[in-house]
C-alpha cells in the first residue's frame, strides 16, 4: 500500500502582494501581505526592509489573527449606563464627531488645559503632539513615561542619543556585548538578528538580568543581578577600569567635557557650574602654555586632573577629576557591592578585565579616511569593540536615570561611542546634549482659543524651563516638568487618571486616551484606577467629567469611556513612521516608512489619525484649516503625510521630496510621494558614505551633512556630558540659589538626585520599606510572542501564553515550603494578588517574576469570561502602587524616578505566602465581568482559518 499521490508543488498562493509595515509591536518591520480573494492569506517579512531584512517574529506572523479578531470595535459607541457598566449604544460617526468637537471646542474656548490628551502606544506622535500644541493644551504625552524614558532621557542628556531608535551596537565589528535588562519585545527582530550574528562570530555575550530566558538563555554569561542594583554593578566596573587606568582619555577630551573646569565654590550661586570666559566659552587648563584656555580649542594639552586658579581667584577642577573621585570611592568597590548586587566581586573584576581586554587589546581598524570637526584628516577609523544595549529593566526603577547615565559613562570611558565595534548613533542622532527643545505650557503660553506656540514635550536645562506656577505647583496634570519630575521628557501617563480624579494639581474636564489600556495593564494599582475612573463628586458628577477613548479593540478601558471612537486595524490604514517621531533609521543612514491600507474595513470604523485631522478642522485649529477656515487636509492622514510641512521643505516623510521627487530630507511637497514609497516597498532609506559611518558626534562631514539634511541646526560638534551642568543648575536651586527654587518639601530631594555625576541609591520603595516583611523583588517581562495586552485576543498567540505563572527560584521555594503548582499570594505594601507557582533555577534567588499583561479582566478582548487569561492569569499591576509609602508629614511621592518621572514598575517589593488549599484554584482579585459590547460578534467554537484558500491546492486532489 504505497502509492504516492500527486500533490501540487507550485500552488499560486495570492492574487496580490502588498507591502506595508507591521504594527504587532513597536519594531515596525517591513511586511508583505499576500491577499487572496480579498482576504489576508499570508504575511511575511520584507527581505529588503532595513529593520527586519525579511525575518518576522511570532507576533508579526500572527497578524492575520489580529486583523480578523472578534474583539475589533465596529462602530462608535456612546455610554448610556453608568461608567464601567459596559452599557453603550451604537451611534453614527456624525454624532460621535459632533459630540467630541462640542466638548473639545467648549474647553478650548474656556481653558485648554482642561483637556488631557494621552496617547499610549501611538506611532503617530508627530501628529498627535502637534495636534495638542495646536489645541493649546500642555497635557499631552504618549506612553514613554511608563516605559523607558529613563533610558531615553539619560542618553539624550549624556551623549545625545540612546539605545533602540537612537542607536545600536556595531554588530559587525564588536568583540564583546553587554546586554542590560532588556524587555524582549523591544527592538526585538533587530536584536535577535544581531544576537545570531554575534554568536556565529564568536563574540562574547554577557546578559545582566535577574531572569534567564530568551536572550539571556543564549548568552555566554548570565549575571543574575538583584533588581535595581545594576548601577552598583556598573559603578564597580568603572572603578576597576579607573584603578587599572584602562580608560581612553584621548577620546574623552576629544568627545566630552572631561577637561572642562568646574568651579569649586561651595555655597556660591555658581558652585559646580563650568568656568567660562567672557564669551561664555567653557575653560580648560592647557598644560602646554600653563594657562586657562577655551576648552573647545584644538591646539591644547588639556589637564584632566589638578586644581587650577580662575582669574577671580577661585579654584576649579576638571570634570574628569570629580568623576574619578566619585567612582574611586570604596563605596563602589566590587567587594562592597557584591552582597547588594548578588554578583561576586571576582565576577565583577573579571568582567572589567574582559571589557578592558576587548577595548584596548582588540582594537578594530577600518581603513576609511575621515575628517574630524576641526578639519583634521584621519587615515583610518579606529574603534574599541565593546558594545552595550539596555532597556526597560534598567529604566523602570526609581534610580533608573542615573543607572542609564552610568552605562553611557562606562561607554565613554572605554572610548566606545560611535566607533567601529562600539555603540553607534542612528541618524537623526546624535543631537546636541540635550536636544535644544523646551516644553511649552507656561501660563503665558496657554491661552483660550490659541495654539501653544511650542511642543508639549522637550528638554529643560534649568529651573527656568520648568512648568510650575509661582507657588511651585505643577502646571501639567501629570506633574511633568514640575519639581517632582523636572526632566520628564515623555510625561507621566501613569499618574494622569489618579491626579485628575483627585483634582491634583487641578481637575480636568475631558480625558482623551488613545490606544493605552489604562484601566488594566498599563496602570499601577488597577483597583485604584478603576475607582478613580468611576469616582463621583458630592453632586453625583464624575470627577473626570468626560472620557473619550479611541482604540481598535475591546480592551478593559473601553468600558470606562463615555464616547468610543473605533480605530481600524493596522492593515486598513495609512500611517507614517516619521523622522519627526520615533524613527527606524540605522547607523548607516536615516530611513522612514509608511503603512498603506492593504484591505478595506468591513466595519464602521475610521483611522484614528483621520479622526484627529477631522476634529482639528472642525475646531478650527490653525494648522488644520486654511486661511479661509476650510479643512487643510480634506483627504485625511495621507493628505497630511504628503502635504504637511513642519518647517519649510521638511515634512513627515523624508524620501522622494521635491517637485520632481528627487530630493531627500528637505524638499518641496511631492504629490506623488506615497506612490514612490509603495513602489519601494513602503520605506525609504538613505545610505551614508562610509566616511560618515562613525564618530558622528565629531565627524565634520557627517555634521555638515546632517545640518544640510535638516537633522541638526548646526554642524557644531556634539559634546558628551560626562558631567551634567543642567543637573547642577537644579541642585543649585535646591541649595537656595536663583529666582526659581523648589518648595521646601521638595528641596532635599532635588538636591539629592540632581547630582551632576551619576550615582547609585537604593530604589525608593525598597528604601522606604527597609526592615519590613517584604524581602523579595517581583518583576515582570513581556514574552517575545506577545506585545502588551493585544496578544490575548489573538487565537494563535493565546495558545502560546494563555496564563502566567509566578516563577520562583527552587531553593527559595524550598525554604518557604512552596511546591510546583502551588497557589500563592504575592503581597506588597499596596495589596495582594494570587497566582500559581512554577519552580525555576534561572532567576535571582531574591526575585520572583511573571509574564506581563497576560492576565485579562473577564469579558474583555472578546474572550470567554472563563478564559484562562481571566481565571488564572494575573497582573502584578494590582499590587504596584502609583504612590510611594507615606513620608513624614503624610506626603506621598509618585512611584517614579525623581529626575524623569519614569514609572518605577520594577521597584516592587513583596513576600509570598502559600494560599489556603481550600481557596479556589484561581486568581484573585477578580473584577466584575465586562459585558459584551453592542454588535460584538459571537465567538466561534471552531476556527478553520485557511480552509477557504485550499481549493485545488490541497494534497492528493
Amino acid at each position: 500500500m504505497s502509492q504516492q499521490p500527486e500533490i501540487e508543488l507550485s500552488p499560486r498562493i495570492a492574487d496580490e502582494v502588498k507591502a506595508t509595515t507591521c504594527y504587532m509591536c513597536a519594531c515596525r518591520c517591513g511586511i508583505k501581505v499576500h491577499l487572496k480573494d480579498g482576504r489576508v492569506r499570508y504575511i511575511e517579512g520584507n527581505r529588503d526592509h532595513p529593520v527586519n531584512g525579511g525575518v518576522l517574529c511570532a507576533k508579526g506572523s500572527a497578524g492575520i489573527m489580529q486583523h480578523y479578531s472578534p474583539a475589533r470595535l465596529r462602530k462608535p459607541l456612546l455610554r448610556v449606563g453608568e461608567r464601567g457598566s459596559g452599557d453603550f449604544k451604537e451611534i453614527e460617526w456624525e454624532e460621535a464627531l459632533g459630540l467630541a468637537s462640542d466638548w473639545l471646542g467648549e474647553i478650548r474656548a474656556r481653558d485648554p488645559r482642561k483637556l488631557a490628551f494621552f496617547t499610549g502606544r501611538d506611532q503617530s506622535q508627530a501628529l498627535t503632539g502637534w495636534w495638542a500644541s495646536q489645541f493649546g493644551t500642555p497635557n499631552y504625552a504618549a506612553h514613554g513615561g511608563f516605559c523607558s524614558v529613563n533610558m531615553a532621557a539619560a542618553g539624550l542628556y549624556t551623549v545625545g542619543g540612546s539605545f533602540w531608535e537612537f542607536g545600536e551596537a556595531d554588530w559587525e565589528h564588536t568583540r564583546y556585548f553587554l546586554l542590560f535588562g532588556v524587555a524582549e519585545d523591544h527592538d526585538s527582530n533587530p536584536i535577535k538578528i544581531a544576537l545570531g550574528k554575534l554568536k556565529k562570530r564568536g563574540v562574547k555575550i554577557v546578559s545582566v538580568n535577574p531572569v534567564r530566558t530568551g536572550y539571556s538563555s543564549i548568552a555566554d554569561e548570565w549575571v543574575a543581578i538583584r533588581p535595581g542594583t545594576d548601577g552598583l554593578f556598573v559603578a564597580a566596573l568603572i572603578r576597576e577600569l579607573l584603578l587599572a587606568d584602562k580608560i581612553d582619555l584621548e577620546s574623552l577630551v576629544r568627545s566630552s567635557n572631561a577637561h572642562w573646569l568646574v568651579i569649586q565654590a561651595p555655597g556660591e550661586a555658581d558652585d559646580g557650574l563650568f568656568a567660562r570666559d567672557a564669551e561664555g566659552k567653557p575653560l580648560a587648563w592647557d598644560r602646554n602654555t600653563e594657562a586657562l584656555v577655551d576648552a573647545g580649542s584644538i591646539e591644547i594639552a588639556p589637564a584632566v586632573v589638578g586644581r587650577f586658579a580662575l582669574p577671580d581667584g577661585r579654584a576649579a577642577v576638571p570634570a574628569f577629576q570629580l568623576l574619578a573621585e566619585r567612582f574611586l570611592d570604596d563605596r563602589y568597590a566590587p567587594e562592597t557591592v557584591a552582597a547588594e548586587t548578588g554578583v561576586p566581586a571576582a565576577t565583577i573584576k573579571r568582567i572589567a578585565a574582559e571589557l578592558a581586554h576587548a577595548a584596548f587589546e582588540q582594537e578594530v581598524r577600518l581603513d576609511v579616511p575621515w575628517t574630524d570637526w576641526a578639519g583634521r584628516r584621519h587615515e583610518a577609523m579606529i574603534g574599541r569593540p565593546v558594545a552595550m544595549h539596555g532597556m526597560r529593566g534598567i529604566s523602570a526603577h526609581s534610580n533608573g536615570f542615573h543607572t542609564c547615565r552610568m552605562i553611557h559613562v562606562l561607554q565613554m570611558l572605554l572610548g566606545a561611542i560611535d566607533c567601529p565595534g562600539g555603540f553607534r548613533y542612528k541618524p537623526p542622532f546624535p543631537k546636541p546634549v540635550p536636544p535644544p527643545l523646551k516644553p511649552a505650557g507656561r501660563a503665558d503660553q496657554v491661552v483660550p482659543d490659541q495654539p501653544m506656540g511650542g511642543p508639549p514635550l522637550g528638554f529643560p536645562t534649568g529651573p527656568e524651563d520648568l512648568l510650575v506656577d509661582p507657588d511651585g505647583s505643577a502646571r501639567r496634570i501629570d506633574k511633568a516638568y514640575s519639581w517632582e519630575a523636572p526632566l520628564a521628557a515623555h510625561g507621566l501617563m501613569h499618574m494622569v487618571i489618579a491626579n485628575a480624579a483627585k483634582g491634583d494639581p487641578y481637575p480636568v474636564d475631558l480625558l482623551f486616551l488613545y490606544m493605552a489600556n489604562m484601566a488594566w495593564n498599563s496602570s499601577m494599582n488597577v483597583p485604584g484606577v478603576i475607582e478613580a475612573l468611576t469616582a463621583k463628586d458630592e453632586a453625583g458628577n464624575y470627577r473626570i467629567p468626560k472620557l473619550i477613548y479611541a482604540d481598535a479593540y475591546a480592551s478593559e478601558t473601553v468600558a470606562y469611556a463615555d464616547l468610543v471612537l473605533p480605530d481600524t486595524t493596522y492593515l486598513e490604514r495609512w500611517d507614517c513612521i516619521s523622522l519627526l517621531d520615533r524613527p527606524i533609521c540605522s547607523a548607516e543612514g536615516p530611513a522612514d516608512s509608511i503603512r498603506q491600507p492593504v484591505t478595506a474595513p468591513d466595519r464602521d470604523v475610521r483611522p484614528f489619525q483621520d479622526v484627529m485631522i477631522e476634529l482639528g478642522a472642525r475646531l478650527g485649529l490653525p494648522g488644520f484649516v486654511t486661511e479661509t477656515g476650510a479643512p487643510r487636509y480634506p483627504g485625511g492622514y495621507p493628505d497630511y503625510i504628503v502635504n504637511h510641512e513642519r518647517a519649510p521643505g521638511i515634512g513627515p516623510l523624508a524620501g522622494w521630496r521635491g517637485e520632481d521627487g528627487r530630493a531627500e530630507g528637505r524638499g518641496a511637497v511631492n504629490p506623488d510621494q506615497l506612490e514612490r514609497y509603495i513602489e519601494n516597498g513602503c520605506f525609504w532609506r538613505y545610505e551614508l558614505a562610509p566616511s560618515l559611518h562613525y564618530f558622528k558626534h565629531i565627524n565634520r562631514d557627517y555634521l555638515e551633512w546632517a545640518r544640510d539634511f535638516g537633522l541638526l541646526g548646526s554642524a557644531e560638534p556634539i559634546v558628551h556630558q560626562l558631567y551634567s551642568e543642567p543637573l547642577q543648575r537644579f541642585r543649585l536651586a535646591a541649595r537656595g540659589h536663583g529666582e526659581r527654587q523648589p518648595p521646601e518639601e521638595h528641596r532635599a530631594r532635588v538636591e539629592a538626585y540632581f547630582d551632576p555625576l551619576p550615582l547609585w541609591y537604593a530604589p525608593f520603595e525598597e528604601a522606604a520599606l527597609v526592615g519590613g516583611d517584604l524581602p523579595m523583588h517581583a518583576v515582570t517581562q513581556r514574552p517575545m510572542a506577545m506585545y502588551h495586552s493585544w496578544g490575548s485576543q489573538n487565537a494563535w498567540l493565546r495558545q502560546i501564553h494563555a496564563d502566567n505563572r509566578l516563577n520562583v527560584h527552587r531553593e527559595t521555594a524550598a525554604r518557604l515550603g512552596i511546591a510546583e503548582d502551588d497557589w500563592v499570594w504575592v503581597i506588597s505594601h499596596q495589596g495582594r494578588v494570587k497566582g500559581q507557582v512554577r519552580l525555576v533555577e534561572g532567576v535571582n534567588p531574591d526575585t520572583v517574576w511573571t509574564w506581563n499583561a497576560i492576565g485579562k479582566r473577564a469579558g474583555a478582548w472578546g474572550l470567554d469570561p472563563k478564559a484562562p487569561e481571566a481565571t488564572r492569569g494575573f497582573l502584578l499591576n494590582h499590587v504596584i502602587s502609583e504612590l510611594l509609602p507615606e513620608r513624614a508629614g503624610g506626603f506621598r511621592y509618585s512611584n517614579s524616578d525623581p529626575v524623569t518621572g519614569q514609572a518605577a514598575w520594577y521597584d516592587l517589593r513583596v513576600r509570598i505566602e502559600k494560599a489556603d488549599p481550600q481557596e479556589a484554584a484561581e486568581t484573585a482579585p477578580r473584577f466584575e465581568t465586562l459585558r459584551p459590547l453592542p454588535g460584538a460578534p459571537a465567538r466561534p467554537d471552531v476556527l478553520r482559518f485557511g480552509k477557504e484558500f485550499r481549493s485545488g491546492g490541497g494534497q492528493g486532489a
Partner: protein
Amino acid sequence: MTSLPPPTDKKLGLVIDLDICVGCHACAVSCKEWNTSGASAPLTDLDPYGANNDGVWLNRIHSYEVDDGAGGMTVNFPRSCLHCETPDCVTVCPTGASYKRAEDGIVLVNPDTCIGCKLCSWACPYGAREFDEDDGVMKKCTLCVDRVYNETLDPADRQPACVRACPTGARAFGDLGDPESAVSKLVAEREGEALLPQLGYKPVNRYLPPRPRRRDAGEAGAALTPQPLPSGAAGGDAAGDRFFRWVDRVLSR
C-alpha cells in the same frame, strides 16, 4: 500497512541551532500561518477564544532548564517532524495515507485517504504529529513541500516558512543526504546530532548543540582581573590620591 520507498540519496530536512535559538516562537507561528492555508489546510483551532483553546501546530517550542555543571542553562527546543529515514509512522499506516516521498524523503499525510486512526501518532516517539479533531485527519510538518519547489515564489523564498521567518538564523534547510550541501557542512562543523538515534528511526533533521559558554576571562582572551596601577604621586592609597597618576598625562584634542 504501508511500505517505505527505497532509500534515496536526497534527504531534505532542517538543521536547528540550539546555540542561538532564543525560544521566540517565530518559526512556530510562521509555520501555523503558512500551513493553515497550505497543503494541510486548515490547522484547526478549537474554542479559539474560550477556556479550552487548543489548535493544531506542526512545530512547537519548548524551553528547558538543564544542568550543564556550570550554573545551569536554559535551552530552547523547537520540535517538529524529523522526516526519519525509517519511520514507523509510515509503516503502521493501514491506508497508505502516511507516506515518505521517494524523491526527497519528506514524510507526508494524504488527507484524502487518512482515516484518522492515529496509529501513526502513537508510533512516533517524537510527538511530531497532531490530529485535527475537526477535520478528522492527522497533520504534520510538510517541510513546506508547497514552498520549497514552488515556482510561483521568488527562488529565495523556496524554503520552509519556519526557516524564512527565524530572526536569529537558527534554522537552515537543505539536503542532508549530500555531504557537500551547506547544511551537511554545518552539521559536520558543529557536530550536529540526531534526536534519540538509539530508537533506530534515523531522523534526517539535525540539532546543533549549544556551543560551550565562555565564562572565564581566559576564554575571552583577558587577564583574570584588571591590574590596578600603583598609587600616584601623593603616595597614599585613599581614593582621592589615586587620580594623581593622570597629572602628568599629556593629552591632545
